[in-house]
């Protein structure tokens, strides 16, 4: 017996549909991941960094720009995957009725949703690759370890894409997405070890951060960009793998419940 009898490789057709649409305007779509890190690095790295100076990371003093550059990639992964599978998937589902049309073909709901989440993760990888190119110019990524950012982005993309899709399955209308963004995305963006080390937080803050996926994604990205690893890499990977193996089937289940009436 197959674990998922309703999922076949046909899910790549859904993925491919999104890729075709993406490629129609790839130039415009590539601009944000190219320019955003530059803006952030200039504002935070050069501007704020001159006030901050260095940061202690893994027992070593590193520059503030080197500290935040991998976090910017992790944040982009989170935003790309979450927004793709929340707002964008919701628009396709609710306004464009794209899923309804797909459901009249041999595609199953599970394949449609799996294809969408896979696309969200792919978009996160594409954005990561573009950002890496921009950030490498500043010499802020160590290679070859830095190449691990790509598979890490894919794993993180699956995690945040699945979370976004769960929201899509639950929200009654598009306005409600403000809620998970305000309660889930923004706090992680600020407190997930992104712009200052977790050690600066009070105990309860640090404990909370450990339960948030971005914290682990930031840690993994930083380890790979800086090129040093410790035991936290294993816990981070384990956390994200667990998160994906819970959120992915949940998203499929909830979307099936929403779409099949």
């Amino acid at each position, binding site marked *: 017996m197959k674990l998922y009898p309703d999922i076949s490789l*046909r899910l790549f*057709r859904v993925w491919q*549909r999104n890729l075709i649409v993406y490629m129609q305007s790839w130039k415009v779509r590539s601009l944000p991941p190219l320019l955003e890190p530059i803006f952030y690095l200039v504002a935070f790295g050069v501007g704020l960094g001159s006030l901050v100076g260095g940061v202690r990371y893994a027992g070593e003093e590193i520059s503030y720009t080197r500290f935040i550059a991998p976090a910017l990639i992790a944040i982009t992964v989170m935003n790309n995957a979450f927004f793709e599978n929340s707002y964008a998937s919701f628009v396709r589902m609710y306004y464009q009725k794209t899923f*309804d*049309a797909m*459901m*009249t073909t041999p595609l199953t709901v599970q394949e449609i949703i799996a294809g969408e989440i896979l696309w969200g993760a792919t978009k996160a990888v594409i954005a990561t690759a573009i950002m890496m190119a921009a950030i490498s110019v500043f010499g802020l990524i160590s290679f070859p370890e830095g190449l691990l950012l790509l598979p890490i982005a894919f794993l993180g993309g699956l995690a945040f894409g699945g979370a976004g899709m769960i929201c899509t399955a639950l929200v009654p209308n598009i306005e409600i997405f403000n809620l998970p963004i305000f309660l889930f995305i923004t706090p992680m963006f600020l407190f997930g070890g992104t712009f200052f080390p977790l050690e600066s937080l009070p105990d309860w803050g640090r404990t909370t951060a450990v339960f948030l996926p971005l914290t682990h994604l930031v840690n993994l990205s930083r380890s790979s960009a800086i090129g040093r690893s410790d035991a936290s890499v294993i816990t981070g990977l384990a956390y994200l793998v667990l998160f994906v193996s819970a959120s992915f089937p949940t998203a499929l289940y909830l979307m099936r419940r929403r779409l*099949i009436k």
Partner: protein
Amino acid sequence: MIDIVVEAKNLRKTFGGLVAVDDLSFSVMTGECFGILGPNGAGKTSTIKMIYAFSPPSGGTLNVLGMDISRHARAIKAKIGVCQQENNLDPDLTVLKNLEVFASYFNIPAAEAKRRSRELLELMAMEGRAASKPVELSGGMIRRVVVARALINRPELLILDEPTTGLDPQSRHQLWERLDVLKHNGLSILLTTHNMDEAARLCDRLIIVDRGRLVVEGRPPELVRRHVGRHIIEITDHNEPVRAFLRERNVPFESVGHRTLVGLENGEELCGRIKERFPDAACTMRMANLEDVFLRLTGRELRE
């Protein structure tokens, strides 16, 4: 070759406490155009959503192309074409790309998909707009592209949910002509409509449903003869004396506001007598049609 493309037995669909389809049984034969008619909320869309394996039945059995819908949904969907009520062309893609991408959902190879897409756009008189985006098209054009898209997998059964609702008369007639061509090529067609002209024009056989239940089944001309008669006499003035006159003669009639309607096999004689007796009454005779059957069987009150 199977003779029956759709076989529904005691089909039921409930949404919580609401019964949308209640014990519906009917069959659609190969090569025929079959209509499901009914007022708003009668259960037409709920019924065909079950047939195209979009919505699982709550009860009864349903076979499409000889396969059980609950066990072979994917295989059935590979062999049918569906035009849903909403225009759900992919707004991010051109007309041609819409067809090609849709073909990929059926695992049709790219070169073959391109060939079929061009062929179908031509069939639907849309080849000139292959490069347009859906927002640039009129309602009638969008519908024709939706039909083209539904034919991309060379279906054995085409299902249309209210195909001409909201279209102007020109677009409607153009679509009907295309559907005629498909029908003459031997395609089995199942459609829902509340447009009686459409049903009379396209359907070989039809059922009328109301409140989820079957009201009547038959061929359009037969239904008219059986339930109304050949002629309809409409009298739009002098209601009271005319109705008294009809009552005296035991002629059944229908009162609709200021109009009195009489359906009968041969109305010429009666029409002449009414004109003689009430020279001022506006009395006209016309051929009875499907709309008369529909209104007689489903009532005249508004459905919201």
